[in-house]
């Protein structure tokens, strides 16, 4: 991580949140360029290992965006994800990672503004925490 500029990974579901990011982009709503978006087909595709891997590879914050509850393209994917997200919040502190560095939201394809606001907030939160300093070092 260069200086104090946080690296953020955003996993966005193809059908909603990714669309939200797109909407924000086309409407030229500014959101922090440090957020690197990875498109996934559904938030239900994301498992805790992927979040752990992102932190291991040096992310300072990890965001996951899915469809609003009830709107999942695959019916129940986001319910499944929500249960996993809860677990990730419990797990991260066990390895010395503040659970505030992880966030998830429901954002629809039309909610460009919500996407922008969420990213800004999350960026500021992660920035406040500073670079992720893992206590584990070989």
């Amino acid at each position, binding site marked *: 991580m260069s200086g104090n500029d946080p690296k953020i990974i955003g996993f966005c579901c193809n059908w909603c949140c990714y669309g939200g990011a797109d909407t924000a982009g086309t409407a030229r709503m500014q959101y922090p360029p440090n957020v690197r978006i990875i498109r996934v087909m559904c938030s239900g595709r994301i*498992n*805790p*290992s992927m979040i*752990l*891997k992102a*932190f*291991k590879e040096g992310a300072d914050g990890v965001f996951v965006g899915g469809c609003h509850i009830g709107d999942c393209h695959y*019916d*129940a994917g986001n*319910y*499944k994800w929500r*249960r*996993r997200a*809860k*677990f*990730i919040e*419990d*797990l991260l502190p*066990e*390895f*010395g*990672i503040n659970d505030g560095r992880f966030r998830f939201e429901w954002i629809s394809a039309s909610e460009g503004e919500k996407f922008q606001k969420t990213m800004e907030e999350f960026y500021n939160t992660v920035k406040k925490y500073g670079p992720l300093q*893992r*206590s*584990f*070092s*070989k």
Partner: protein
Amino acid sequence: MEPEYLLARAKDENILEKGECGGAVSSIFQYLLDCDLVDGVLNLSHGEDIYDGIPSLIEDSKDLIETCGSLHCAPTMFGELISKYLQDMRLAVAVKPCDAMAIKELENRHQIDGDKLYKVGLNCGGTVLPITARKMIKLFYQIDPADVVKEEIDKGKFIIELTDDSHKELKIDDLEDEGYGRRVNCQRCEQKIPRNADIACGNWGTEPGWTFIEIITSKGKELVEKARENGYIEVKAPSGKAVAIRGKVESVMIKMAQKFQNKYLEENYPSLEKWDEYWNRCIKCYACRDACPLCYCRECDLEKEYYEDSGDTPPDPLTFQGVRLSHVCYSCINCGQCEDVCPMEIPVARIFHKMQKKYRDQTGFTAGISDELPPLYSPEKE
């Protein structure tokens, strides 16, 4: 099913003599083998001495005499042996609560076919690691461990019986304060009576020479009835007082376990710095995974290039135990096997048990007891 209690003992004199209590467990096995209701019995035979329990598959009821008696210094696990090697057999198995819990989780995951299994439960106050037991007997009892012919945990004491018939006992609490005694996961274990087996057998509430049986399932009820009808056991009703005593002992034990959970998972839980020290020792030998009855995947994520660090040790705990935790901790039954086999003395079961407890508090899912998979896997919209 309403719980049903009875006392039972072997009709066969040899089994009655060699059995731990009334030899009822061995007699029930004898009945199952003789009447060809099972192909084999999975239990423990005695190796070198009383500290050496070896899983064995008995196919001839005459050999059951070699497996009579309880080995309190044999923390074995049967779950994986069944799912990996004995799937094709009709089996009866002697299960401690943790064995029964592992089997339950594996049944829920379709790794064991419960219909092929008779689960004969043994109450369990805890097991002691064999080498720990030997050291402890030398150090605190000042006895040569080879002179001990029998050991037992009763009324909070670890009792040893010597070749000359004399007994010596010490308070288990005192031993455990010194780092000896039962395995720490056993100290935390609340499952004292295996109510996830078909019957639960024990010495609590019993009379000398009898085994106390709690009938749990209808399969268990039929089993005990048929074993009696066929002349393998005799039974009688326990007194109401005995049943009450048993209940009381159980609840005292559970309270103690909760106290220990608090001690090991909260008060004395290792700090982050201590965990880093532990993880730094990990040699990525996968012993913890391989010993865990819940980890049965043929292709494990931990060995996938994606999560594996170069060949180096120690592996990053986030993508090593972190990944394993995210796969199985919901179902961790606190059997302690992972910790027992870790060459680097990393208290692996502690973090798994802690996370399962958290999960249980949030969702009500009790590993090894609940009839379904953890809600994490549920397709329900909730």
